[in-house]
């Protein structure tokens, strides 16, 4: 396990999680990817989902289970996650482009249309993406949700941005 050495989830570790959608569901369009691998006491993602697509149940240390067919990728669970571990991945954003929505708590916020460095889980800049959406409703409580475009093959790599 590399996660406990450097904080970076590998693809193998990710795919084993019950809160990461399968390839087939990903191909259909926007869906959440919940990168929550440990039995920590936390469940705000569960009530955040209006569709009932995220189940933690009891005890609250359960790893969330994503009901991938109920999730429409609305992203309402992204900001409430105290671990900033939820992302929306839309493989059908454009012809060759995917969109990744991620929680962002740095200042200043990017503007819509701004080019930003797209960072992978190691913090390496792997692409220059375009910000297509910046959501900051008060219900997100100062966690912005930023949507950035990336090539499809980087959709499961990009997890942060740098201005």
């Amino acid at each position, binding site marked *: 396990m590399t996660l406990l050495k450097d904080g970076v989830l590998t693809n193998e570790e990710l795919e084993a999680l019950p809160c990461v959608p399968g390839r087939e569901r990903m191909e259909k369009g926007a869906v959440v990817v919940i990168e929550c691998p*440990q039995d920590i006491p936390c469940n705000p993602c569960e009530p955040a989902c209006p569709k009932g697509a995220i189940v933690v149940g009891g005890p609250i240390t359960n790893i969330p289970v994503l009901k991938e067919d109920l999730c429409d990728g609305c992203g309402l669970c992204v900001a409430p996650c105290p671990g900033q571990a939820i992302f929306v991945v839309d493989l059908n954003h454009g012809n060759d482009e995917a969109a990744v929505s991620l929680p962002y708590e740095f200042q200043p916020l990017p503007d819509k249309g701004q080019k930003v460095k797209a960072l*992978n889980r190691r913090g390496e800049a792997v692409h220059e993406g375009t910000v297509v959406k910046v959501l900051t409703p008060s219900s997100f409580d100062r966690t912005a949700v930023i949507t950035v475009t990336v090539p499809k093959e980087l959709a499961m790599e990009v997890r942060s941005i740098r201005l």
Partner: protein
Amino acid sequence: MKKVELAVIGAGPAGLCAAIEGAKHGLQVTLIDENIRAGGQLFKQIHKFFGSGVHRAGIRGVDIGSQLLDETEKAGVEVMLDTVVWGLFEDKVLALVHEGRSTQLSAERIILAAGATENALAFPGWTLPGVMGAGAAQTMMNMHRVMPGKKAIMVGSGNVGLIVGYQLIQAGIKLELLVEAAPEIGGYSVHASKLARNGVKIFTSTTIKEARGDERVESAVTVSVDENWNPVPGTEREHEVDMVCLAVGLSPLIELARLAGCGFKYLSELGGHVPLHDEKMETTQPGIYVAGDIAGIDEASTAMEEGRIAALAAAESLGRLGGEEADALKKSARKRMEEFWDGSFGRRVKASKESLSVKE
């Protein structure tokens, strides 16, 4: 001498919840804190808390602090700030000092919720300006809006190190690296992942060897450690930083419990010497209770529940609350606390806490 029914010492999450709960059940409560503002560490916690709705999960610590201050006022708690409790004598008499004047206060019940202090780590250069506790850095950044440095190294990968590390970045400081002497990251991996994806390198089995600089920190030297925690020669690396942040654990602030003659047990898992206490949070001294980090280092979320349990027990013992009602309320607080201790992170805390139990 002034007399109160319940004196709560320490206005952090445990003390605030104890005071609110006590007042709610009709006790005349005085809450005392040495700081000029109540809230303990809550106002430094700009991140969203874990847990579930009943634990106020998803709410930032700073906002939980505001909620609790509001509830304290509404409940009619008397709050004495900038007031140090320097003595605890027989018959539950407290010696206080405020603005240079010493007074005494007699209490029928006392809840000690003094919290904890940050551990230091001694290494060559550790007294240089720029070496500081993670909590100190947090106070500067989040309370006083002062940047404590420009480039930092964080020592320790518990939740404090990981969370404060992230807050350094939020404040505009470059966190060059985080080192952890243990072979694995200690805190929640989701917090570590937040650092990693923003470019912070985390090195496990690595510690700080030295801080260098003339007037202040100019660099830090790290070194790998083997499975016996011994430095591995030749693995030293120098990093250009002006700030060394130490997040190497907390120790319960137990002086008043010592003065009161409480029984103790040493449990490294809980941060050191901890007052023995039962399920009601009562110590070996009848009528003196503990809650929060003084009762063993843990999260703010469980500290709040311990505060409530202690106040319920105090109210019950003074006849303000029927046994059945008190039991039901204590049970639900304990249930919320145990929810927090269910996973692999809380399990060790729970086991240690249980070993502190005083037979009723």
